[in-house]
């Protein structure tokens, strides 16, 4: 990803790199081919990403119920949003869900990666099964858990000590959401950490063993530090990915009971598509997006991997 910046020749250096210039023919046909290959992507991006992005700005100052002509209402949406305790509560819950799920998937995923790195019995089968939930639709996986957690039909409640109406109790509903999204996505940190561990040169392990390190010391002092960059990326990915996820919450609780599991995506979805407050939903989406982008920036700025490995 970064390589292009290095490869891009400065204007005065161009003649020294005739190889690249010749690739797409003479100057004119070069441009024709370049934009010809880019055309489908450009057209799709203009229509379905940039145009909606621009459209979302006037929508913030409008009242629009989803049909007919929108009506301008000035700053009412923004004023409403910043005085809406439900919005801030949803942001708070989003942060909590994101942090808890990121922590859960990274810790368990790393533990699984260590186990598979050490080639425990049945490593390949267990890896296959541990990653399996990742490919399932989060909505459908959550639906399966909803059945399992159901107070009358579910098998979870038949286990002694676990009999509880997990999804209807406001105190436990969020924990259920955290649990389901953690257990579904443990596989992603697992494969990333495992491949980072497999990249560690055998000599580093051998040197540690010669120095008298036992297995645990080797994990703590050699394997984890050498996988640090990957760990940083994995945590960032989990945070950014979880921040946007609607599916698990929508399928498990729809943000309920009450608003106990209401997060930013369900808040926007409810305001827009259920309450037909499209102007207000767009305002929430705009400021929510700003927050996600800001957090992403802060994270990548302060926890920059020491060397960004690209694939």
């Amino acid at each position, binding site marked *: 990803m970064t390589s292009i910046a290095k490869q891009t020749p400065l204007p005065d250096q161009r003649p020294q790199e005739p190889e690249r210039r010749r690739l797409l023919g003479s100057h004119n046909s070069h441009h024709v081919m370049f934009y010809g290959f*880019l055309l489908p992507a450009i057209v799709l*991006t203009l229509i379905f990403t940039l145009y909606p992005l621009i459209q979302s700005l006037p929508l913030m100052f409008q009242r629009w119920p989803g049909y007919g002509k929108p009506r301008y209402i000035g700053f009412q949406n923004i004023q409403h949003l910043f005085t809406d305790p439900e919005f801030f509560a949803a942001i708070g819950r989003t942060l909590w869900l994101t942090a808890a799920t990121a922590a859960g998937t990274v810790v368990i995923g790393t533990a699984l990666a260590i186990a598979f790195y050490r080639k425990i019995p049945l490593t390949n089968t267990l890896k296959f099964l541990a990653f399996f939930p990742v490919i399932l639709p989060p909505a459908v996986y959550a639906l399966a858990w909803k059945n399992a957690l159901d107070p009358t039909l579910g098998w979870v409640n038949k286990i002694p000590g676990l009999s509880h109406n997990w999804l209807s109790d406001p105190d436990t509903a969020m924990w259920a959401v955290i649990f389901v999204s953690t257990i579904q996505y443990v596989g992603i940190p697992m494969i*990333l950490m495992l491949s980072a561990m497999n990249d560690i040169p055998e000599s580093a392990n051998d040197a540690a063993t010669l120095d008298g390190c036992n297995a645990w010391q080797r994990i703590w002092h050699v394997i984890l530090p050498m996988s640090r960059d990957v760990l940083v990326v994995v945590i960032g990915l989990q945070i950014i990915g979880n921040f946007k996820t609607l599916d698990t919450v929508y399928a498990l609780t729809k943000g309920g009971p009450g608003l106990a599991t209401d997060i930013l995506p369900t808040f926007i979805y409810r305001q827009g598509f259920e309450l037909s407050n499209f102007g207000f939903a767009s305002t929430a*989406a705009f400021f929510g997006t700003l927050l996600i982008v800001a957090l992403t920036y802060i994270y990548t700025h302060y926890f920059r991997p020491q060397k960004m490995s690209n694939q």
Partner: protein
Amino acid sequence: MSISELDDPTPTRPATTTTNGQKRRLPRKGARHSTGSIVVSIIVFIFVLIGILPIISIILGSLKSTTQIVGDPLGLPIPLQFGNYARGWAGVAVGESMSTYFVNTVAFSVVAVIVSTIAGTMAAYAIARAATRTSTIFERSFTLLYALPYLAVIIPLFSITGDFGLRSNPFGIGLVFGAGWLFLTVILMFGFFASFPNDVIEAAKTDGASEIRIFLSIVVPMSKGAILSCVLLAFIYSWNNLSHTLPLLVDPASTTVAPGLLLFSAQYSVDLGAQFAGIVISIVPLVGAYALMHKHIMESFRVGSFR
């Protein structure tokens, strides 16, 4: 290494050779395992089992009657109730059958995969080959747009797809989703094309092949693995999609399996066997792909996560 040591014909140190070989092999790929690693294996197995148990209970339930499901959720399905699948496939929720949702999902995913893979691969190729200042700007823009959360565009997309007549059309919303997905394809394919062997293209150019011909008959066949990764990721994410399908496929007759099953479970709770069969049907293509290509899928997710 240990094999060559064992094959060593010099009988000077026969005993130590074997013990040395054993010692070095054990922690990485020993045939016999220590008690500790067996215990770890059992703990991991229990954890993994928790992760798949809800799916197992759905699969078992899809072959049981509703009374059996309620009475014994994890019991074996005796006798097998294959009728659930017929009712699940034809089962009606909000006036639409599961089969409609399935066909819509195929339409949605196929359009999304084709659009994002073709447009994304072509754009990545152009950017990687040109390697000019303009192409760098494009590369940066696509990376930036990839980081843009769908939440920023989903509300205006509702109004735009209405204006264009794409709303409640699985092909149309597949196009919308594919247009959003292509940024990842551009980034992944760009990473691949950046290290593509130039001399192959040079040779074809000298032979007088056109750019389109070079792309189609040399570059694409040589990029099969990378393209397959993009296809697999696009397929899994579009098949699983809820963020676009739930708000933009408003008419129940046009919706896909993920939002359809949520409607299904809300309205069809009397016949649990059929509902569970519907869930199993909805994940068959994913499970099939995973069973056949799990190594390639894991690798795609790994590279896809790194971008």
